[in-house]
């Protein structure tokens, strides 16, 4: 037992205490097992990895266990049949027409199947590990209670290990049937632990101390908005090659950290956020990013990064459709009562004459800052209103061959507009605009339209 903790503790830095707790709780195979163990903690804290490794070791000892996922098992039948298959050592094969060990549609079938299976096994402990256990809450009101009391119900030595990112408070069934389980908490890794783990990613031909200094710097920059270990590893893996590049080009020595950081600066400034948000995929990054070297000007690097990130989201719509989308945005966010002020073309003004904010009052925070339409989200509007705005904001008369209705339909298909009225209604159709302000600004720029002049109470 002690050497198991030792072995796993070496594999998972910083998780020794949790491993010890788990090993103690689960005990030896022939001893009474705890009814239910609840492993919880934020994501990327090693819950699944540790539990899987532990049960891998148990599997080598010959303990029967089933590892299932709450997401994969979207019906209770899948969950139960997989568990029984694993316990019985049954593998569905083509010869057996991929049949399962036993058919379990309901909890009764499962409990009876488990009882029958385990009766001849002499009290040896059997385990169920459920990953993403929070999904089990959707599989019927009594499933969790039944699992938590499986030992009692099946009269066998069974332990259920639940893994989740959510605390047990959110699991407790309404009728209170599940006793509180033994809880094992996996906290976020501390800085030292993060460094110890990422140190294992250190490329074989790089000096580890040099690598860790870099990781340390990345951690200091990012831990304020993200403490997720996986995100940090992602960033380190993508940014480190850029950081050491000047060393191989003999433009800087490994000891010159400030200089290296200076050379790497454009990447940190422009790319890290986009990489973090996956606006640039790692594949793109590896293939297309500019080679980091002192020879490349920082402006070029920034430009290249911008180009990479923007290539994807430029909405390539036809000219009039862009105006339609802008009109939809305005109809969604501007109050109806101000339409006349913003969009009406009086007889005294020619087409494209004075309009917009100079006449509109547009007081900031007139409605109270908290409930501005910008914060509340798009409002449903009648298609007719959108069309009126469309014909008002478009400078030249629209060619009659342009079929506006088809364009509206295709915007709905693209999910840029969403229909707010019933789908079978032909008149009085209402829509919402699903596009954000940034995208609308980009589209407006592409058709040389100043959208900001028409926006009421935006900041």
């Amino acid at each position: 037992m002690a050497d198991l903790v030792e072995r796993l503790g070496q594999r998972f830095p910083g998780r020794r205490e949790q491993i010890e707790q788990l090993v103690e709780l689960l005990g030896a195979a022939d001893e009474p097992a705890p009814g239910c163990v609840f492993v919880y903690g934020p994501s990327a804290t090693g819950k699944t990895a540790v539990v899987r490794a532990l049960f891998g070791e148990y599997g080598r000892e010959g303990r029967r266990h089933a590892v299932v996922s709450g997401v994969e098992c979207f019906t209770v039948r899948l969950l139960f049949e997989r568990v029984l298959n694993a316990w019985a050592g049954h593998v569905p094969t083509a010869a057996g027409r991929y049949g399962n060990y036993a058919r379990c549609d309901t909890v009764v079938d499962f409990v009876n199947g488990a009882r029958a299976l385990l009766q001849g096994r002499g009290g040896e402990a059997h385990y169920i590990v459920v990953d993403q256990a929070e999904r089990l809450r959707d599989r019927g009101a009594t499933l969790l209670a039944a699992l938590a009391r499986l030992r009692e119900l099946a009269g066998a030595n069974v332990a259920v290990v639940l893994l989740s990112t959510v605390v047990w408070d959110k699991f407790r069934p309404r009728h209170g049937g599940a006793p509180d389980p033994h809880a094992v908490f996996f906290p976020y890794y501390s800085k030292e632990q993060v460094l110890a783990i990422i140190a294992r990613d250190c490329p074989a031909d790089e000096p580890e101390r040099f690598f860790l200094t870099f990781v340390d710097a990345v951690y200091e920059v990012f831990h304020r908005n993200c403490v997720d270990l996986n995100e940090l590893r992602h960033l380190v893996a993508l940014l480190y090659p850029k950081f050491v590049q000047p060393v191989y080009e003999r433009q800087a020595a490994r000891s010159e950290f400030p200089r290296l950081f200076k050379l790497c600066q454009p990447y940190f400034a422009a790319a890290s956020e986009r990489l973090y948000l996956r606006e640039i995929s790692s594949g793109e990054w590896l293939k297309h990013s500019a080679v980091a070297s002192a020879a490349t000007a920082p402006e070029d690097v920034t430009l290249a990064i911008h180009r990479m990130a923007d290539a994807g989201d430029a909405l390539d719509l036809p000219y009039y459709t862009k105006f339609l989308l802008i009109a939809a945005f305005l109809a969604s966010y501007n109050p109806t009562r101000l339409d006349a002020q913003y969009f009406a073309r009086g007889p005294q003004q020619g087409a494209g004459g004075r309009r917009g904010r100079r006449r509109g009052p547009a007081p900031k925070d007139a409605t109270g800052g908290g409930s501005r339409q910008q914060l509340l989200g798009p409002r449903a509007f009648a298609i007719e209103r959108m069309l009126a705005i469309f014909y008002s904001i478009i400078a030249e008369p629209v060619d009659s061959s342009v079929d506006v209705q088809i364009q509206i339909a295709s915007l709905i298909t693209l999910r840029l507009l969403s229909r707010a009225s019933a789908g079978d209604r032909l008149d009085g159709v209402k829509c919402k605009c699903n596009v954000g302000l940034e995208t609308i600004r980009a589209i407006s720029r592409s058709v040389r339209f100043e959208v900001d002049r028409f926006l009421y109470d935006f900041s």
Partner: protein
Amino acid sequence: MPVRKSLSGAADEAVSEAVSEAVSEAVVRSVRKTVLGRLHGHAAVPELVGLEGPVAAVAALLRQTVAGGEGNSALVLGPRGSGKSAVVGRALEMLEAQHGGETAAAAAYHVVRLSGFVHTTDRAALRDIARQLLITQDLENVLVGSFADAFTYILGLLRAPSAEAALPPVVFVLDEFDLLAQHPKQSLLYTLFDIAQSQQTPIAVVGLTARIDVMDLLEKRVKSRFSHRQIHVHPPPTLEAFVQIARSALCVDAAAAAVPAAFARRFNARVDEILAAAPVARHIEAIFDLAKDVRQLLRLFVPAVAALRPDDPLLAPARVQASVARDAAPAKAQVLASISLLELCLVIAMRSLVQGGSSRYNFEMVYNEYKTFMSRHMVAVSAGGAMKIYKKPVALKAFETLVELEIVRPALPASTAAEGAAGGGTHGRNDMLAGTVAGARVPKEYRMVQLMLEPGQVADLVAARVDIPTIVRRWAQ
């Protein structure tokens, strides 16, 4: 405390024995197995503290059925973890000692256990009753008829084929009785109570439930056939009785467990020592004051018992104290203790929205609040050091981490909120990301959410952090 007395009595006899330090592997194994079995609920605690009355009542009722051929029905009521199952289990043990046979088939009576968690329909229950009564006949054509007919047919099969003798008595134990009562038409309960009352067959029906108002769930025709006998199981009334339960579960009996008497005495002395020590005793008192939950109490000792080894065969106080400390730590605060600064700022922003009077808000409002605060204090911040306003997508990603942890949950629309409070309710998945709730057509930035923390909890959370700028700290106050 009868158990202790008998134990110390046994120890006195063995006083002449040399107290050997080393304990054999086999002894430690057996101790570990016995005590863990009790802690995990595999075996009953040897002494049911304060439950003698209910045990006697249930045992008498079962005896009347098995020995006297009476039909009986009763409900065992008591809060969760108060020992209802233990009471019935002990009564059944006593019954078995008197009337049991070598095998289940040879016994003079049958026991059928049903649970509201498992038997969610009356059909499933019926099928399982047949299985538990060891009936192997194919019942498919019987089960199509009415429930009562099928049930009497199944009971009829119990009759010994040779004689025209009376049917053997059957004891029905109905766990989670309130859930069984929620089956449509309650035909299972009706049939059981009807047979128990009309004396066709000697059966005893014992229902277990934590719902005190369970009688209101029964239909009139079911209620009228029930004997209205209720046996109440109360949680331990005093702290001493509560501690005694733990002692009874942890102590080993030299006679029963094949343990050397001297070792048993040392072991039990250590148990007393641990139960009396300050942090453990205080935590037990807290559990007693809050919930009187016996299972929570026993859970504390599992790590210490599991760690017993031949070279360290007594419970280690340090391990018990560590598990007490873990048990006392609030789970939600633990999870939140090390979220990133940005996530913390969003939580504080939500709190100030709540204090501003809005009960529902979306990400845009939260971000707006965050941005307003940050830009107002930008001057002070830039003097203080590295703190910047994060862009909206970065903040959204942090916000989604909070959603994943269910610190932030989608707010129900005002109409369904009242419904959800009344009954049913949406208990399941956090639907903000899945986008299946009503209003999911709205982009996710605009979906209304609620913070699942009290303002006081946020203040505690911030107070516990050491690594945050003063400006944020002041914002949270």
